[in-house]
């Protein structure tokens, strides 16, 4: 009798565990890291906090500074700061097809190499780099921004910060 009772409870517990797992697997969850099947290699429009930055894990909240990398396997990775794009592409071996960034002045997705970069913008990660579509004085091209980022010569460096912002 005792054994039958234990078996019945065990059965109920196992069924409950399966129900909990099925329920949680079926639910839509919080921020995601990347999107699959971007076969057209176009920039994907996103909502604030829909994705997390693939490099620093922060939510991609301020879309003015958002960036995307599309890789050869059709995955799209999202970033909250163009500095994170540089760091991520340095660390990962995935073959990159296209890289897009949002622009501060025209608010649209353009390829990173077609944009110009400010060094003193209040970007989410505080590196200071932000993409601008129309060239102005003081803006630098992508390759120069990439080099400065990799050398650590961004607003995180107190000497650079003092030189650029005077404080």
């Amino acid at each position, binding site marked *: 009798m005792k*054994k039958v009772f*234990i078996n019945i409870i065990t059965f109920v517990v196992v069924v*409950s565990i399966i129900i*909990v797992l099925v329920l*949680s697997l079926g639910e839509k*969850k919080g*921020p995601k890291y990347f999107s699959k099947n971007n076969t057209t290699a176009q920039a994907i429009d996103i909502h604030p906090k829909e994705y*997390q930055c693939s490099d620093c*894990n922060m*939510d991609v909240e301020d879309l003015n500074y958002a960036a995307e990398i599309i890789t050869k396997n059709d995955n799209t990775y999202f970033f909250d700061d163009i500095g994170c794009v540089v760091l991520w592409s340095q660390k990962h071996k995935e073959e990159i097809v296209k890289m897009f960034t949002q622009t501060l002045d025209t608010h649209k997705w353009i390829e990173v190499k077609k944009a110009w970069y400010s060094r003193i913008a209040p970007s989410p990660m505080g590196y200071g780099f932000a993409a601008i579509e129309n060239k102005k004085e003081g803006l630098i091209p992508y390759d120069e921004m990439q080099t400065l980022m990799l050398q650590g010569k961004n607003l995180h460096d107190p000497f650079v910060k003092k030189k650029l912002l005077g404080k």
Partner: protein
Amino acid sequence: MNEILLSNEVIVYLLSETLLYLLLFIAFLVTLGLLKKWNFNAFTAEQFILENRSYLVMTIIFFVILLKVVLLPYFVYTIDNLSDLIPGAMCGAGVIKANGYGNPLLILKIIILFLSGLWLTVNSIDLGAKNYPYLKLKSWFFVFIFILLSTEFALDILYFTHIETSNPVSCCSVIFGQIGGANGLPFGLDIPKLMILFYLLFLLLVLAILADNALLTIVASILFASISYYAVVYVFGTYIYELPTHQCPFCMLQDHYYYIGYLVWGLLFLGVFFAIDSAIMYYFFKINSKALKKISLILLGLFVLLSSAYIAVYYIKNGVFL
């Protein structure tokens, strides 16, 4: 030589590991001889020597395994102490991720300890019988463990010699993804469902042990151990730290939290180990050890009680959950 290798804890740890490895190496060589020439039915002088030697070897292995049990918490303590030397590390979480060897090493250590415990069980069954029925089995088992131990020893050396004190590492809140609100839980679970699953799996494990269902005990133990890891890191830990954003398996090992992490993780590890151990004894050797089951039930019960008590005490004190 870097600062890491000059730290007292690392010197003591690496020296102990080296000495134990040397002892095990001797045991390994003798075990190979035993495996080659062992024949219990032979009444030769050689077999007599082998029997004496096997007893010596088993004693060496027994001694080393017991010391290894002590060395795992000491390794964790060493890692935790190194966080003072490495920039950016606030606890062991950053130190263990200081290079690629850390995490595999820690996982391997836990696996080895688990297998060593099983070896002790087989050894005690073998010594309890008069004709060494499991000598070949436990010798091959030891050879397998020795291969893992050699890998562990190599990883030990590689890990400690490759920690850079000039490179900053991440602190636990970055590693466990709290900054971005990342969901580190498996199967898309959220906190309430994780808690329901935790208590359901505990109930299932207790029922499986009581019903003498060996296979279910093994499966439930493995599931309970994995879900408990997440429950401690993502729920119970936040009550230990009394901070909802602080989710870390290592910080609770520090003195600010009265070293409670050693007790929490220790109870979980030992409880699950004895549950699986008793199931394996029942399934493979047809030995129904009531004592082992009782010990595992007590340890698992204490683990669940202790973890839940943190939530209960916090709620009683503050009137809210985190």
